[in-house]
């Protein structure tokens, strides 16, 4: 009998909410506004409905009722809408899109296992107790979701003192989009939603207040009574103020609770008020204000993360590798921030699912397009204009994002009173498309594509015609995510990336030639997440990549040209990895995340191995022969384990200590003998002579929040040991070089540093950090030409010991805010001339040891104002103006120093990129 009651109760909770009454209702409607229907019911049955008018404004109803039970009436009325209801005697509470309390199918199997036992228990008694004593009355006279008390799970299965798992989806109520990265927590227990907005939280049964936070959304909370395993979805509202706020809320609590060190999530919103050069809001540029992320100088492409080389960062866009993340040689990033959701930056504690680069991962994701309504966003600044549209294709299921950005900087060139640049042309553009299809709760497919192109035509030399130069990134990704049940999901993705450049030099007709380079990468990844319920969460999978590289071809242009053709033999390689990691919550305080990645790489034929004398430096003179490899031969294979470990210990509610160790292996190297990344860098594969780079990092940190998380602070100390860093013999020329081993040098490196960081939330918000960081390399070959600086450790080009960043924003009113940035860092190392001599009648400079000197220190201040019109909730267009002054002090920061010989006299020059203050005004809109 008890079994029967329990089952009935369970069914009850499944089918409707609240108590059933016997009220019946009659009425007939034809395209009647639902509000009118509600008024009719209220009038006839003296019911009271609680709802927000805007939820039902657009809804109508057609149909007839004749003495129909009220529960059936309500079900019929709201069928096919997002409105859910809770019916309690004479009161009906409506909610928008929130499945208030239900027992989802996905946990029903769990329930099924437990229900026989639980049904044995006197659940009713406890339930009554709870209801009457604890929340009777709270759920009355209230249409406020935050104070309403929801029931989760089945009362029949309530077991006092036990724990249950609550699962659900967090969505944006205006777009219906799942929110990834939202923090759902109650007390000490917290969960972060996955890509589909899904969370899973294990709590003791009973009453809880669930808090939900996400950048750009209003923080919200729900009162629940957790009876048993159950599902509870929460919709979040867009925070009207948040559009321009610098918000780091998503990481609130995450600061101290996240297990890994050195991981930051940057949302596009974060970048909006940071004053930027020429008004281009740029998420990657904002990243450089974080502790430990540096660039060589203003306008330099490539990042140096914690003393890593600029080719040691893995940039992923929707999972596809980005080989050149810069437009215009580094002044802009290749991503239009309007089309981006956000970016995870990992500088240590890199999870086992990522690999292939030593220093960091920048995981960039495109916006999941709005599935409810069309939105358009754009902006105009002095250099570019951009437009992004989100278009629902199948309402609530499928949608499309299309975004484009173009430059029109040619007019600037025309206005420059400088003959050298009059006839030059500069163009760049980028496009993003993404199609997202939520087939059902379990399956989701997304397809994305990316294209960026830079084209230049330069009047570049003494010989009066032009050189054309262009480079392009192309990427495509297809991803299928599937959730098998509450604790198991998987995703399968395939990606393609391509980076090419080409230039043509046609100024001398008879020597006109073109030259190109290209890399293509095909990748596939299968990733699984299995929640073994507390305390273990497993992530495992495998990844495979194939690389095809055209290291360079040179070809004559025009029939007059006598330039010879050179075609370096293509390179091929495959890279694979298996990984498994476990998020292990040992107890409330101690949590571990450990994993192992095993990667391997094979350099594939066809190809030629050059042989050299054993006891001589490798150069064309010491070549003794060659071995020819056939197609598909495994010329050289490297493999090795990469251990990843992170631990977090909560000292108290507001502070924690963390430790992480990770090892990475890198099989792909950018050959560049300039100080920063350049579009003409050649990515080449490890081969029989170029060994993979290996890096180990240990990082320890202390984290503390103050004033309920308004202030977040941290101190992190790290040490890195790197081996096989790739560098070059002095003056080496690697273009069109088939024998990289004759010019490349490999040596160990070491980096260490400490980073202090403070973030503040509220009307005055922003962050401040100070880093002390050093990085060295040693190139000590067996021969003179392979040894730099006598084979001792010397600072790298990007060794900048002291860095201070301050990014701040103050909201004077909700419409008006001001921001201020301050940046200081030590000048980078540089090689200076130390002597002068004459050879064959020509004067020549002799240089110091590599990187023996430094350029002057860098100091910059920026200010910005943002003024917005219209609020998102008014549904009208929303726009904002921003005015900023970059380098407000007008300080001529040295970018580099160089030396010229003018009539036998050595003259030193300082080159500054921004020699004065740069004011910018830009207009941005969204509707």
């Amino acid at each position: 009998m008890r079994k029967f009651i329990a089952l009935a109760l369970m069914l009850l909770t499944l089918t409707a909410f609240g108590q059933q009454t016997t009220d019946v209702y009659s009425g007939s409607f034809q395209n009647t506004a639902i509000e009118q229907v509600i008024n009719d019911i209220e009038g006839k049955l003296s019911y009271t409905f609680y709802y927000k008018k805007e939820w039902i404004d657009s809804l109508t109803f057609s149909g007839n009722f004749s003495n129909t039970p009220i529960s059936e009436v309500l079900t019929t009325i709201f069928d096919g809408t997002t409105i859910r209801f809770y019916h309690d005697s004479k009161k009906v509470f409506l909610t928008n899109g929130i499945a208030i309390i239900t027992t989802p199918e996905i946990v029903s199997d769990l329930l099924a296992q437990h229900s026989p036992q639980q049904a044995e228990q006197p659940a009713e008694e406890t339930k009554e107790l709870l209801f009457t004593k604890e929340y009777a009355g709270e759920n009355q006279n209230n249409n406020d979701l935050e104070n309403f008390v929801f029931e989760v799970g089945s009362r029949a299965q309530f077991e006092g003192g036990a724990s249950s798992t609550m699962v659900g989806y967090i969505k944006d109520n205006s777009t219906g989009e799942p929110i990834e990265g939202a923090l759902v927590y109650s007390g000490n227990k917290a969960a972060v939603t996955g890509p589909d907005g899904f969370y899973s939280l294990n709590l003791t049964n009973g009453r809880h207040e669930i808090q939900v936070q996400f950048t750009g959304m209003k923080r919200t909370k729900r009162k629940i009574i957790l009876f048993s395993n159950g599902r509870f979805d929460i919709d979040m509202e867009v925070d009207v103020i948040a559009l321009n706020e610098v918000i780091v809320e998503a990481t609130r609590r995450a600061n101290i609770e996240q297990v890994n060190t050195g991981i930051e999530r940057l949302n596009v919103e974060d970048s909006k008020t940071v004053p930027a050069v020429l008004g281009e809001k740029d998420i990657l540029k904002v990243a450089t204000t974080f502790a430990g992320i540096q660039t060589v100088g203003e306008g330099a492409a490539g990042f140096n993360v914690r003393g890593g080389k600029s080719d040691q960062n893995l940039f992923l866009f929707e999972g596809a590798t980005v080989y050149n993340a810069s437009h215009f040689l580094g002044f802009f990033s290749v991503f239009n921030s309007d089309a981006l959701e956000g970016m995870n930056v990992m500088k240590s504690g890199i999870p086992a699912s990522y690999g292939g680069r030593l220093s960091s991962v920048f995981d960039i994701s495109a916006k999941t397009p709005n599935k409810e309504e069309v939105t358009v966003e754009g902006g105009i600044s002095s250099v570019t204009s951009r437009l992004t549209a989100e278009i629902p294709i199948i309402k609530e299921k499928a949608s499309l994002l299309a975004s484009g950005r173009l430059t029109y900087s040619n007019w600037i060139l025309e206005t420059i009173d400088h003959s050298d640049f009059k006839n030059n042309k500069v163009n760049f553009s980028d496009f993003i498309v993404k199609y997202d299809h939520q087939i059902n709760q379990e399956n989701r497919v997304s397809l994305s594509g990316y294209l960026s192109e830079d084209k230049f035509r330069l009047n570049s030399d003494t010989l009066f015609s032009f050189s054309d130069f262009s480079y392009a990134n192309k990427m495509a990704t297809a991803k299928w995510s599937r959730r098998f049940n509450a604790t198991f999901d998987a995703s399968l993705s395939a990606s393609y990336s391509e980076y090419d450049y080409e230039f043509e030099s046609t100024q001398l007709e008879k020597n006109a030639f073109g030259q190109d380079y290209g890399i293509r990468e095909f990748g596939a990844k299968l990733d699984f997440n299995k929640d073994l319920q507390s305390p273990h969460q497993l992530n495992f999978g495998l990844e495979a990549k194939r690389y095809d590289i055209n290291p360079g071809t040179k070809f004559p242009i025009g029939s007059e040209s006598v330039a010879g053709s050179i075609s370096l033999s293509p390179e091929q390689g495959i890279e694979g990895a298996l990984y498994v990691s476990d998020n292990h919550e040992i107890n409330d305080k101690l949590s571990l995340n450990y994993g192992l990645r095993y990667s391997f790489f094979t350099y594939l034929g066809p190809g030629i191995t050059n042989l050299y004398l054993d006891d001589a430096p490798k150069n064309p003179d010491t070549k003794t022969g060659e071995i020819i490899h056939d197609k598909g031969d495994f010329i050289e294979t490297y493999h090795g384990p990469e251990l990843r470990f992170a631990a977090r210990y909560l000292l108290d509610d507001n502070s924690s200590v963390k430790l992480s160790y990770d090892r990475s292996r890198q099989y792909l190297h950018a050959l560049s003998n300039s100080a920063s990344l350049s579009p003409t860098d050649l990515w080449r594969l490890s081969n029989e002579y170029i060994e993979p780079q290996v890096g180990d990092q240990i990082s320890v940190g202390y984290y503390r929040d103050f004033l309920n998380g308004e202030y977040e602070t941290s101190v992190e100390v790290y040490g890195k040991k790197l081996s096989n860093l790739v560098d070059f013999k002095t003056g080496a020329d690697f273009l069109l070089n088939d024998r990289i081993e004759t010019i490349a040098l490999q040596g160990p490196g070491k980096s260490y540093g400490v980073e202090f960081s403070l973030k503040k939330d509220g009307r005055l918000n922003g962050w401040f950090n100070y880093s002390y960081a050093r990085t060295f390399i040693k190139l000590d070959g067996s021969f003179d030409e392979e040894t730099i600086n006598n084979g001792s450790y010397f600072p790298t080009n990007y060794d900048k010991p002291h860095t201070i960043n301050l990014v701040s924003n103050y909201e004077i009113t909700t419409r008006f805010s001001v921001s201020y940035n301050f940046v200081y860092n030590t000048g980078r190392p540089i090689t200076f001339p130390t002597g002068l001599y004459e050879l064959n009648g020509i004067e020549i400079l002799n240089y110091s040891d590599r990187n023996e000197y430094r350029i002057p220190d860098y100091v910059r201040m920026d200010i910005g104002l943002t003024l917005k019109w219209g609020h998102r909730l008014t549904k009208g267009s929303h726009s904002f103006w921003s005015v900023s002054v970059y380098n407000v002090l007008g300080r001529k920061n040295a970018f580099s120093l160089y030396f010229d010989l003018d009539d036998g006299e050595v003259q030193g020059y300082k080159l500054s990129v921004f020699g004065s203050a740069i004011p910018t005004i830009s207009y941005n809109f969204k509707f």
Partner: protein
Amino acid sequence: MKRDKLSIIKSLWLLAVIIVATGCVEEFETDSIKFEKLLVVDANISDQAKTHQVRLFYTNPIDQDTDNISNALTGATVWVEDNIGNRTDFIEQSPGYYRSPESFAGQRGNRYALFITTAEGKNYQSAYEEMVQSPEITDIYNQFNIELGDRNATSVPGVQFFINVENADQGSQFYRYEWNDVHQIVVPYPKKYEAIPSREGYDVAPFTLDVEECYREERFDELILATSTNNANGQLVEVPIKFSQAYDFNVTTRYSIEITQRSISPEAYSYYRKIELFNESNGSLFDKQQGIIVGNVISLDDPDERVLGYFEVSGSSSKRIYLDYTALDPEILAYLDRTCEEYGAIQYSGSIEDFYAANDLPESLRGSEASKRSLYELFDLGLTGEFKFAHRFCTDCRRRGSLGKPEYWQ
């Protein structure tokens, strides 16, 4: 040839700086730089019979002149040996300059090395380098061109001299070029009288020196390199050698350029190429990594001592052309300011003081014609004693050249 992608990127980068920024270049004090004193071997021998020279100097601090005698390595024993044991001594003629006998010429196909023993007994030796013949330069020609200014950004019209070498594959395929040129200047109004400023004004006196015909010689001051290794049929075509500004020809009557081609070893080429790349540096991020460049000379006593410079062994061939200024690329003629044709001569019957007087007035009052008068000088007297003035470039050839015809001038 000289152009490569790197400099395209550099220009592009500088362009970027200019577009998006207010990039600027300022002078920088070089005081903080410490000096490193190293031996520099500046030596080359060729297959031409002549006095060859080895210069042995130490490096200078960057703010001093390179010809500082106190930096010379004096008192050393210097000789060249070939692979069959022939030794040629180089005798010190002046501090740091060591010279071979006049008859010395390298033999093609032989390999040579340089030996140095200093007065203190330190020994240095170069690698053995083979002497490879240099094919003939097929022709030398010029084309109108506008050269972009360096930092000061003014474009300069002029002519670019090129060479073609048909059988470039018959030499070592790696070449270094040297040039020297000469402008012959014959002025139309050679000075017979001159006006000498005195307390009262000007004294007119006869001028007896013959300043009608002068020559202005210049030589290369940068590395010019080319290789035919990458060319389809072993030719060298359109190798840019020298750029001359249009201004250089404003009073030139005849011009001659001699270009010497040196067939050097691949090692020498790669050594010079590094130097060339470093000298091209302009501070952009795409500059090559700079550093010390050592050549083919080593210290036999101290393997850690770094020796700069190079012992170059080359076959050489030269070609000289002569041309009248009217034979330059016709396009340049529009840019040529032929000073003497433009200014002509003025016969003036007032006083010299009056001729120049208007110069003190502001230009708005004196007019442009009067302002030009400052450029004129007296060169002759008319039949009735009136003064004849002409542009000073057209009265005294020494203003744009030197007296004395070079021996080779035809």
